[in-house]
């Protein structure tokens, strides 16, 4: 089979597209080998195990989506279009992120930069490898809907499953090509120093599209009719011209990507390497150093603060927070005027728990960083400093993710509610968020930014996230129905929460310091290059 696929006919086809067949197959084999050996773990397309786990999750999601059609059996066309859109949207979320990581941070391409490889050949091999994701996920998402069509469709027919699978697969492929073309255009129009930041914004867009799909559809559906010209002939031309235009944009985007990609690689990896970074000592770090553990605490504070801002791998892990923050802003905008003591339910009751969700996401991501190899410096640190370092990291997280946002909330809400209510709510929210921070500290499994990102770990936190959603719903219910019925009740609960936060944080900080020491020990025992040298 392999020999047939790589025969003279395929070679001619590749050559016609400007691709060097010999090097294309070599690179494809290399990427497969690296994926099998799990060399680079932060790309789904290269991590076979994650891909298989995700496939099973997509099978489940596909089954769930089918349930929505049971009550009102759709026509075959409606059913097909709906699932093509679901496939495009879900794969868009994954593939745009994948393409961004793979094409904007091409670490492996740097190893090959001085080899005689055409940009077109490299990007073709890369895209083929990335599109493995479509090969797994598109059929997985559509397997149950295709089979269930016999029971769901108004007028089922025997060959519908084949059409469904083929059409949704094509939708997935087009989404993949669109993702790559998008980055082709970005590479053309943005300088290397800005590209990674721009890529992160672009990666967040599909999540926002999923979140606000309903509103986007309502607006565009209403406007498309108005935009289209009068007269059926002109409308027909537009219907033909628009897909051709879209295809041209995608093709030129992919072409733009492949042109001189291997010459741009070095600049891409080092991004803003030539730029100067403003660095000044934060007054908050002085406070942390003064009260929480001296130079090690300052080190933990400053190190985490700087890398949280600059580490590309960390920042892109937190893309999921962007829609969360936007939805929190929208909720506050809609319900912020309602005093939580008024007896009416509003989004304000949920806000303290959104801090918990954000802190949870940061806690599970913060151990992983783009420059994890630099963590060897911690091997030389005396084990006693980790307690102070842990307090510094805690101080930064509390200051940046709880203190500052609550100060902003206080400044805004003071104009909307009575002062006593604002103060009480802000202290209550602070205590809830602090308790959450105390709890999620336990999830920080080592020194911040000291490990290579692993895509598959997200799957393991699904259980915690589902359980957490249930617990938060119950907590919000209790808050609304019992706590916020009296000022004294809120004051009492706030006091209890603050005490709990103190106890939990103290225990978690000790565990966090142990986790860091433990991971340093593990690192020194690894057979990784740099650690072996130090031991030798």
């Amino acid at each position, binding site marked *: 089979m392999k020999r047939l696929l790589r025969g003279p006919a395929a070679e001619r086809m590749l050559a016609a597209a400007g691709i060097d067949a*010999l*090097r294309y197959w*070599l690179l494809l084999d*290399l990427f497969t*080998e*690296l994926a099998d*050996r*799990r*060399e680079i773990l932060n790309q789904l397309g290269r991590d076979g195990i994650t891909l298989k786990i995700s496939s099973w999750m997509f099978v489940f999601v596909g089954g769930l989506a089918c349930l929505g059609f049971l009550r009102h059996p759709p026509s075959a066309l409606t059913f097909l279009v709906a699932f093509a859109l679901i496939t495009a949207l879900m794969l868009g979320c994954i593939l745009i992120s994948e393409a961004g990581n793979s094409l904007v941070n091409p670490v*492996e391409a*740097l*190893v*090959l*930069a*001085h*080899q*005689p*490889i*055409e940009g077109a050949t490299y990007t073709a091999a890369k895209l083929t490898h990335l599109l493995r994701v479509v090969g797994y996920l598109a059929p997985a998402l559509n397997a149950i809907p295709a089979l269930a069509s016999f029971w769901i469709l108004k007028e089922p027919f025997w060959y519908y499953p084949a059409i469904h699978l083929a059409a949704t697969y094509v939708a997935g492929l087009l989404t993949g090509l669109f993702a790559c073309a998008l980055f082709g255009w970005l590479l053309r129009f943005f*300088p*290397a*120093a800005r590209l990674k930041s721009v890529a992160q914004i672009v990666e967040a867009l599909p999540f926002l599209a999923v979140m606000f799909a309903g509103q986007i559809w309502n607006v565009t559906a209403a406007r498309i009719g108005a935009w289209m010209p009068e007269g059926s002939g002109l409308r027909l031309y537009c219907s033909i011209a628009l897909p051709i235009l879209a295809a041209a944009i995608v093709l030129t985007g992919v072409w733009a990507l492949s042109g*001189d990609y*291997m*010459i741009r*690689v*070095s*600049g891409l990896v*080092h991004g*803003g*390497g*030539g*730029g100067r970074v403003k660095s000044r000592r934060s007054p908050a770090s002085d406070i942390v150093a003064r009260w929480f553990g001296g130079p090690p605490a300052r080190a933990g504070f400053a190190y985490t603060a700087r890398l949280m801002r600059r580490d590309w791998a960390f920042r892109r892990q937190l893309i999921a927070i962007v829609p969360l923050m936007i939805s929190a802003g929208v909720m506050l905008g809609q319900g912020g005027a309602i005093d939580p003591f008024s007896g009416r339910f509003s989004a304000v009751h949920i806000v303290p728990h959104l801090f918990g969700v954000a802190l949870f996401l940061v806690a599970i991501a913060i151990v992983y960083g783009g420059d994890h190899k630099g963590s060897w410096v911690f091997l030389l640190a005396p084990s006693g400093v980790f307690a102070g370092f842990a307090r510094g990291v805690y101080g930064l997280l509390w200051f940046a993710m709880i203190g500052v946002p609550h100060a902003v909330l206080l400044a805004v809400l003071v104009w909307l509610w009575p002062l006593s209510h604002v103060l009480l709510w802000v202290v209550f929210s602070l205590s809830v968020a602090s308790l959450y921070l105390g709890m999620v500290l336990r999830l920080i499994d080592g020194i911040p930014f000291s490990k290579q990102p692993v895509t598959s770990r997200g799957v393991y936190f699904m259980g915690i996230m589902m359980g957490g959603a249930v617990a938060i719903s119950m907590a919000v219910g209790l808050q609304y129905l019992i706590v916020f019925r009296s000022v004294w009740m809120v004051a009492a609960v706030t006091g209890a929460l603050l005490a709990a936060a103190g106890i939990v944080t103290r225990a978690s900080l000790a565990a966090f310091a142990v986790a860091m020491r433990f991971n340093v020990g593990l690192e020194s025992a690894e*057979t*990784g*290059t740099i650690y*072996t*040298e130090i031991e*030798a």
Partner: protein
Amino acid sequence: MRKRRVVEGLLEAETDVNFGHGESTGYNDAIVEFDQVVFSYGHVEVLHEISFRLERGQIVGLLGPNGAGKSTTIKIIAGIHAHRSGNVRVAGLPLPERAIDVKQRIGYVPEAAMLFETLTGQEFLELCGRLHGVEEDTLQARIAGILETFSLSSDRVLRLDAYSKGMRQKILIAAALLHNPDLILLDEPLSGLDVNAAILVKDLIAALAAEGKTILYSSHVLDVVEKICDRVLIIHQGRLIADGSAEGLKESTKQTTLEDVFRVLTNSANVDPGVGRIVSVLRS
């Protein structure tokens, strides 16, 4: 002996010493032509109108303080970076337009050992050789020969993440030579090598030059450069400030060693105040 003959011959041919005028030295058989080349990282210009030519069979040392632009110069010749203005030709081929053809003709040992850590030494070399289109039988013979010379035969099946720094450096040097390139670019090639391996590489460089290969050798180890290079280029703050034989440079600057020449030309003649400052800071 053969190396000495080659070096003496080239020194006789080289009559002029050029201090920072950025003009070509009038060689005819150039394999690298750098003409008024400017390169920037973003808005930061790191090479300012540099010009020089490298002739076939020469061993040329590329010197300069940290951040002077040595590695950037080598990367431009290797087709990894595209310069902003000026002209670069390697073996008569313009860069970056003919980068693929140039990459076929060069061997490059990068400054930082970037490798695929999960491949074995053998697999990595096979990959590099095949990407250069070396015939399989020839490739296997060359890999076996080079690995044996570098005493890596028994480690060829180990993954590269188990290699020491010196072993990784040997693999990089082997990968640069597998396709028998005309131009060899070495960026700190002796970094991490033990004494025997370093001697081996130095002899190898001389032997390759005797075969007609051109070698551009970037290093901070000045006595090695002085011993093995026919010609020395010194870059400082993105400008070519000297170009000539080590003897010629010493004579022109009235210094006795290349290290002294380097100190004078890069304004680092008196480092004592800096050393004293560090010691006093540590005492505080």
